[in-house]
C-alpha cells in the first residue's frame, strides 16, 4: 500500500525566516507529485508539480520554491517567509496519464507566520 508522509506537522515561524517542508511517498515508483496551499477556510491552490526526479514546474508564484531530489521526496522551501505564507500545505501524489487528477493527499503541514 502507498503511504504519504509530510513533515513537520506544524510550524510557527517568524517573518523573514527560512522554511523547509517535506513529503515522502512510499510504495509507489515514479509518482507525479504536487504541492498545494490552503489558506484557513480557503480553497486548494496548486503551487508546483513534478513528473520526474529533478524536474519541477511552478503553477503560481508565491515566493516559494520546490525541489524533487529523490523519486519519492518532494521539498517546499523559501529563504524568507511572508505573513501571507501562513496556511496549510498539502503534498499529493497521483499516477500519470489518464489517472492524473486523481490525487492522494498527505495529512498536511500547518504553517503559522508571525
Amino acid at each position, binding site marked *: 500500500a502507498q503511504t504519504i508522509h509530510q513533515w513537520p506537522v506544524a510550524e510557527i515561524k517568524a517573518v523573514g525566516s527560512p522554511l523547509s517542508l517535506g513529503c515522502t511517498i512510499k510504495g509507489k515508483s515514479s509518482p507525479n507529485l504536487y504541492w498545494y496551499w490552503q489558506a484557513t477556510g480557503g480553497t*486548494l491552490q*496548486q503551487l508546483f508539480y513534478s513528473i520526474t526526479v529533478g524536474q519541477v514546474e511552478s503553477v503560481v508564484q508565491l515566493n516559494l520554491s520546490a525541489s524533487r531530489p529523490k523519486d519519492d521526496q518532494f521539498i517546499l522551501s523559501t529563504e524568507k517567509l511572508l505573513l501571507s505564507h501562513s496556511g496549510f500545505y498539502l503534498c499529493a501524489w497521483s499516477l500519470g496519464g489518464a489517472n492524473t487528477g486523481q*490525487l492522494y493527499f498527505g*495529512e498536511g503541514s500547518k504553517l503559522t507566520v508571525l
Partner: protein
Amino acid sequence: GDSVTQTEGLVTLTEGLPVMLNCTYQSTYSPFLFWYVQHLNEAPKLLLKSFTDNKRPEHQGFHATLHKSSSSFHLQKSSAQLSDSALYYCASMSNYNVLYFGSGTKLTVEP
C-alpha cells in the same frame, strides 16, 4: 487556466433530504471534472471523477453528471446522512498535472 465556481459556501440540510451542490466551470478545452471531500481535520479525498464517455460516476451514494452544454458538474445524493457533513470541492483539469479547485461548499447535515 480553468476556473471553477461553487456558488454555495454553506449548505445545511436535514438528514434524509436530497443533496445538490452546484459546480460550474470555465475552460478553453474539455476538462475532466472531479469532486473531492474533506472531513474535519482530514486530508481531501477523491469522491468522483467525470468520464469521457458521458457515463455517470457514482460513489458512496453520490453521483454527478457532466453537462457540457451548461458547463456544470453538480453533485447529488438522494438522501443525506449525518456522516456526509464535510467540505466538498469541485475541481477541473484540462491541462494534465494542473488541477483547479473551486472555493468549496461546507455541507452540514442535521438530525
